[in-house]
């Protein structure tokens, strides 16, 4: 009996708290009519921002404000839309949180800034710029557009990105690239790991660089690239049989390798100061 009473009381309290939270939340919607290649910028200290494409020429922003300690400053100048979560005195990471869902035309350029995130963008053809301190960043299915990501600790996951420049910098967040290719792919990490799965395609320039983070590249056997891999203090391993290649430095077995695979269409540089580098052959 006591147990049942306790359970009932707990349930009631949870429902009351949830209701309180819901009551204090405010939902707002903003609509903007834009032309081709619009630019949308969202700055949100606390809370997720998700951007997805929608047909038509409207930018639709749905924002859920978690308290009255935060308000949204929004503006449109011609083809440029800007939204900033303005924290009021006394706000905290909970009370200052705003959840954004943004629908944009697929060709819009998007710029998202957040401390906590997470930040998500998918299926766009316009440039994507994401910046977050501890925010998780998840970008997928972007083509013919540049992707720029900066995080301090937040992990970064990019998948199915093609035909644009990709530049990622993260201090300690792990960076995962899955089927990412383009004319330029640059990743710089300090202690975060870099994991690449793909084929280094598109005849591009690939540079994966870290201080202490390990670099793992899982590459298809049909890939075509020339590679220089070097770790000053760490170990390097290679699963491929590479053709000869001249390098400006002496190859020290176990610390560096260089060579070409197939027609060497792409240029790949794997550099880690003291992390381990492994160029793996992907199993079919």
């Amino acid at each position, binding site marked *: 009996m006591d147990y049942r009473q306790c359970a009932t009381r707990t349930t009631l309290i949870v429902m009351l708290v949830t209701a309180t939270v819901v009551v204090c939340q405010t939902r707002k919607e903003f609509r903007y009519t834009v032309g081709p290649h619009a630019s949308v910028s969202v700055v949100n200290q606390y809370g997720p921002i998700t951007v997805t494409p929608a047909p038509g020429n409207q930018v639709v922003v749905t924002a859920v404000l978690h308290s009255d300690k935060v308000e949204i400053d929004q503006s449109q100048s011609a083809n440029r839309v800007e939204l900033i979560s303005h924290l009021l005195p006394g706000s905290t990471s909970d009370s200052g949180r705003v959840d954004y869902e943004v629908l944009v035309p697929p060709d819009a350029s998007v710029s998202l800034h957040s401390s906590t995130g997470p930040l998500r963008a998918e299926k766009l053809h316009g440039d994507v710029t994401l910046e977050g*301190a501890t925010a998780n960043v998840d970008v997928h299915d972007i083509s013919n557009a540049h992707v720029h990501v900066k995080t301090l600790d937040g992990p970064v996951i990019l998948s199915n990105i093609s035909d644009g420049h990709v530049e990622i910098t993260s201090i300690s967040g792990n960076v995962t690239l899955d089927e990412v290719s383009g004319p330029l792919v640059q990743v710089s990490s300090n202690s975060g790991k870099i994991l690449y799965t793909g084929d280094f395609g598109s005849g591009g320039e690939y540079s994966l660089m870290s*201080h202490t983070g390990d670099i793992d590249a899982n590459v298809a056997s049909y890939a075509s690239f020339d590679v220089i891999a070097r770790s000053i203090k760490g170990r390097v391993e290679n699963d491929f049989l590479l053709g000869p290649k001249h390098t400006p430095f002496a190859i020290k077995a176990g610390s560096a390798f260089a060579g070409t695979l197939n027609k060497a269409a792409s240029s790949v540089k794997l550099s880690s100061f003291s992390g381990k580098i492994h160029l793996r052959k992907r199993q079919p």
Partner: protein
Amino acid sequence: MNCAEFQQVLPGTEKGGRSAEQELHLQSCSVCSDLVSDLDFIVREARTLQASEEPSPQVWQSIQAEIAELRSELDLIAREARALQASEEPSPAVWKSIQAEIGDWQTEMASIAAQARELQASHEPSPRVWNSLEIALREEGLIRQPQRETVPMSSRRWRLGWLVPVATAALVAFGVLLYRPTVVNQGEVAQSASPRVFHTNNQVSVKDDQELLNAVGTRSPAMRVAYENDLRDVNAYIRDAEQSAAADPNDEEVQQYLMDAYQQKNMVYQMALDRSLP
């Protein structure tokens, strides 16, 4: 030691590198000693196979034919390149238009110079001001009768023109004086030929980092620890890269690490100081 144990370690051992236990087993076991004997025989015989075969004369003939074809292709490319070069000389009209452009430019420059002189003249005070001053100063015995400047315009222009290179030389000299060679280790001056290594001035860097963290802590206390950790990581990166660069200044790769490290630090500062985020 039994046969299975012996044969398990056999791949990692060569003759002369076996342990006493392994040697003892070999002496007592005919199966393993036959095995080792056969393997040694195979290895001995295999070495005699090196360079033991000769290719047929046809191989060299094929190589010669390919090289001849390659040479004729290269010659053809060189001939075509020369023809292309000759065909790409500009027509005389191009030179005439360049001359015309130079003429226009000279005219424009002269016009600008004239306007500049007018402007200069327009900003000078009227002669009455000087006359009044002159009278006053002469009365007080502070100046004599001024001699009229008969320096022609061209001379004045020459003096102005002379001023520019002198000013440049002065700036260069000033820059040279300001430049202090980086001191490396035990007071040695850094080689001018080597790429410049930016030795972190630790005190300044620590102070800057502290100020940054204080600013972050004021605006967002929860983020301070994260920024502190990240600054520690990037400073470690900078230190490692600098040490490696000092050890081998000609290593291009290490210079790239150094640049990457500074870019990461720059990013941390940028994100911390971004006004759009507390």
